[in-house]
């Protein structure tokens, strides 16, 4: 038997092209042709009425082909962009127009769209557009939004887009009865995904076929396709969306359609030319989504052991100027906040608020980092109050392994019950304590203190609902060459799907791994799909691919059994050859089975001769049996009842400099349970990347808006993404593999986990080192210094 590839650190097949510089990212599409390039005039003001737009000067610029403003949009294009995820609580949802109509609501909002010979000329033209504005007072930050002295949208009272409350039990009463109570106020600032590649779209209209071809750097090609078709008044069948190689997403490319994803196709059709838009870095800062900005107030009641009796959380979510992605982020915070714990009585209420800033859509972790931070800081506060070890307080609150499935009694982001499928939190805790050296730390801390050095340790636990529905599908096609072509509709932005999915197919079909080729995010190959977000790809498409491969295998066995005159049950497939167990001579390879699966009238090569009607099948039966289709294919969909819940714990040891307040990471440890691992090398890579992003989010990155709504740090010079020098030198990772009962492979998602506990774990460690409450993240040395001063005075 060939060894199973599931669970092996198989090297990635996609690397071969990336390493040679032969990846094909969106800005690489159509470089061989003379394409037109677009640039966008973006609002320089956070809040203003547009009185007039004068494009007269632009048309003189040599090389300019077109300029569009709102007035040039017609039909559905002139309507607001879709509100992708409506929710009954989102009573005042607002979305922007593809090009601003009458008013701008954030610095960066698209106002005009220029198409020219190249991007240089397009930018020259943009610089010549004159806009008259009437300034309106901007609303920046959660405090200003709540104060509501000014409104972002005139018709949204109090700047409140939504208010949502959920409750299990009676939290207020439980807290009132509790022997001990505490309250905490915790804030997290805005940050952003910041993939190394920005957004981009290329479109070409084929006048012969009446079809639109779109390439876009997206996390949901089917979503873009549907949106483009509707907005352009085309049938879905007239629009193909292909996702090229994507240079990172982390959430920002799940929102769609971005204005340019509509404007590029519109211009391509109007001009009869291929049109390309490639977002630059400054644009990415001011026009692509941000996340994380939230303020939380927590009331908690607990007993002498630190057991939660009641938890009451109120928080305010800054969703920016528009709400295209609905309430996903705050709903996730409000539900996933509970982590591995049983709060007994829990009430959570949030307000989702408008501000004159870039809109908010999920960023890796999607509200979980904030929820984890709120819950874990509460655990730390309880431990400090009771003088107990922080791990002990956590342990008494854990859901126990024998309590699964565990229903938290809330409604999750997918509209389904928040019911955890499996997990083993006590085991994880033991592992993380061992990995970071929790029990030895106090001695180390004392030893360091004796040398005048300050060190602190932090720990944080999380549970992550992964693999949310509605579904994903897969198509597996065994070609007559024996090669296996696999398509699934969700997209890839670095997760190595072409590798992990091929591992699953090779395992199920018994074919060589090298013979499997996986395509993702191409609506021509798999038109039914949702997208890559919420750590769902491996669970959803992985399961669908597994099921589709199973179907293909069933067909292989049926045809092979007939050809080999054997019983299906006696067949095995090894290395792409079907043989009768025990008599290896009686065999047929997958390619030949494929030939046989498709009875032909015409031969076109040697192999196909064997499949012509005079050489194949029983003349007494129809060439294609009833209930069968020609071709060796399998197609299936996976649509789970609910999400599967991965979990994990991080711990960090930091040192803070007594003089400069610099924060140095001495050790970072991760215990991670995402069920069965398909490819541990890739999962570890995801964790490393998440941790680095988490370090950025906790210690370096923030969106620095001034009160007029200008983003002061819209460059890599001032938005401080970590280099290697800022991330821990070595991340200790240990795995638990608690299988999910919900899917055939027992897997759970892994993509986001690395970033979830970072704000919590760093705040805890710094607090431990400093003895000062850390309640606002991220934290810089300058801020730590300020805290020290406030605390000492």
């Amino acid at each position, binding site marked *: 038997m060939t060894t199973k590839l599931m669970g092996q*650190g198989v*090297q*990635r097949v*996609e*690397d*071969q092209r*990336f*390493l*040679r*510089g*032969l*990846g*094909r*990212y969106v*800005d*690489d599409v159509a*470089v*061989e042709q003379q394409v037109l390039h677009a640039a966008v005039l973006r609002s320089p003001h956070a809040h203003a009425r547009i009185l007039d737009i004068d494009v007269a000067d632009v048309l003189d610029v*040599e090389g300019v082909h077109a300029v569009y403003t709102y007035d040039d949009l017609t039909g559905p294009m002139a309507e607001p962009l879709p509100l992708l995820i409506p929710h009954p609580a989102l009573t005042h949802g607002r979305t922007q127009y593809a090009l601003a109509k009458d008013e701008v609501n954030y610095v960066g909002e698209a106002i005009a769209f220029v198409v020219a010979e*190249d*991007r*240089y000329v397009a930018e020259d033209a943009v610089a010549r557009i004159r806009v008259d504005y009437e300034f309106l007072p901007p609303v920046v930050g959660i405090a200003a939004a709540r104060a509501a002295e000014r409104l972002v949208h005139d018709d949204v009272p109090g700047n409140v887009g939504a208010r949502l409350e959920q409750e299990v039990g009676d939290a207020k009463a439980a807290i009132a009865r509790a022997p001990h109570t505490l309250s905490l106020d915790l804030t997290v600032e805005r940050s952003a995904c*910041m*993939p*190394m*590649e920005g957004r981009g779209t290329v479109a070409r209209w084929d006048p012969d076929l009446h079809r639109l071809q779109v390439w876009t750097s997206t996390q949901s090609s089917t979503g873009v396709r549907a949106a483009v078709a509707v907005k352009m008044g085309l049938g879905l069948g007239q629009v193909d969306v292909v996702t090229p*190689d*994507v*240079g*990172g997403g*982390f959430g920002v490319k799940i929102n769609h359609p971005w204005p340019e994803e509509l404007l590029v196709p519109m211009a391509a059709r109007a001009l009869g030319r291929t049109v390309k838009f490639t977002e*630059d*870095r400054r644009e990415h800062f001011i026009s692509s989504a941000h996340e994380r900005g939230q303020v939380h107030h927590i009331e908690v009641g607990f007993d002498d052991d630190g057991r939660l009796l009641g938890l009451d959380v109120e928080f305010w979510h800054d969703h920016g100027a528009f709400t295209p992605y609905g309430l996903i982020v705050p709903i996730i915070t409000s539900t996933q906040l509970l982590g591995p714990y049983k709060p007994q009585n829990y009430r959570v209420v949030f307000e989702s608020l408008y501000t004159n800033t870039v809109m908010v859509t999920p960023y890796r972790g999607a509200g979980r980092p904030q929820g984890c931070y709120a819950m874990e800081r509460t655990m730390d506060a309880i431990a400090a109050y009771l003088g107990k070890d922080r791990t002990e307080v956590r342990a008494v609150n854990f859901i126990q392994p024998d309590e699964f499935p565990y229903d938290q009694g809330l409604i999750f982001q997918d509209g389904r019950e928040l019911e955890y499928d499996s997990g083993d939190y006590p085991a994880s805790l033991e592992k993380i304590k061992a990995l970071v050296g929790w029990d030895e730390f106090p001695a180390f801390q004392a030893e360091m203190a004796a040398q005048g050095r300050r060190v602190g340790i932090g720990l944080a636990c999380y549970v992550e609902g992964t693999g949310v529905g509605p579904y994903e599908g897969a198509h597996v096609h065994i070609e007559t060459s024996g090669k296996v072509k696999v398509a699934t509709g969700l997209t890839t*932005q*670095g*997760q*190595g799907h072409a590798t992990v999915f091929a591992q699953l197919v090779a395992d199920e079909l018994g074919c060589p791994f090298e013979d499997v080729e996986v395509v993702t995010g191409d609506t021509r190959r798999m038109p039914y799909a949702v997208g890559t977000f919420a750590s769902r790809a491996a669970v959803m498409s992985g399961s669908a691919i597994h099921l589709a491969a199973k179907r293909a295998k069933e067909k292989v066995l049926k045809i092979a059994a007939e050809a080999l005159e054997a019983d299906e049950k006696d067949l095995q497939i090894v290395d792409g050859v079907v043989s009768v167990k025990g008599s290896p001579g009686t065999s047929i390879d997958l390619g030949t089975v494929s030939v046989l699966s498709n009875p032909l009238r015409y031969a076109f090569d040697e192999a196909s001769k064997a499949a012509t009607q005079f050489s194949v099948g029983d003349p007494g039966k129809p060439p294609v049996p009833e209930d069968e289709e020609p071709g060796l294919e399998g197609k299936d969909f996976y649509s789970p009842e609910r999400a599967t819940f991965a979990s994990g714990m991080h711990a960090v040891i930091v040192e803070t400099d007594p003089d400069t307040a610099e924060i140095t990471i001495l050790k970072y440890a991760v215990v991670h349970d995402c069920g069965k691992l398909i490819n541990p*090398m890739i999962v*570890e*890579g*995801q*964790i*490393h*990347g*998440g*941790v*680095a*992003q988490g370090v950025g989010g906790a210690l370096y990155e923030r969106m620095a808006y001034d009160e007029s709504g200008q983003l002061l740090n819209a*460059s*890599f*010079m001032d938005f401080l*993404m970590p*280099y*290697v*020098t800022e*991330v821990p*030198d*070595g*991340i200790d990772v240990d795995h638990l593999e608690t299988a999910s009962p919900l899917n055939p492979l027992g897997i759970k998602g892994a993509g986001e986990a*690395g970033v979830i506990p970072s704000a919590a774990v760093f705040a805890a460690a710094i607090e431990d080192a400093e003895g000062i409450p850390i309640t606002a993240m991220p934290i810089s040395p300058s801020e730590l210094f300020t805290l020290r001063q406030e605390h000492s005075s």
Partner: protein
Amino acid sequence: MSEELHDVRLTVNGASHEIRVPARRLLSDALRHDLRLTGTHVGCEHGVCGACTVLVDGEPMRACLMFAVSAVDHEITTVEGLTHADGSLSPVQQAFAECHGLQCGFCTPGFLTTITAGLRDNPQPTHEEARDMIAGNLCRCTGYQNIVKAVERAAELGSEARTSTTGGAS
């Protein structure tokens, strides 16, 4: 007001190319759009991320901070030029594959060029030197852990290759 164009001869990966471009054409754009060598990526266009790093006379430089017109007297090497003539991967490329040093691959060309020059100058870096070698390049996906491993692995592969060739000769 049509813009003056310059005839520029660029030597890239050993081949000479003539292009006609305005003076403001960034080298990164000239490589990508005029020469269609799209392996060089553009992540920021202000010199910070390093995705556009190419070798200019063997030294890593930001292609987004040079104009094509200023590159005339130089030999440029891009990621496409790192692969061996027979199509096999160079030690640095090979090490990235072995160590899972890339995810989305967007930052990768800049790391590969930088490390190629770094290991030429310092074939046996210490762990600290390996980290320092990549300290000017941003990656948003990998958390750098495996890139550092790849530098160390590439050094190993490089020294294996050297011993096997010198071993053969002597």
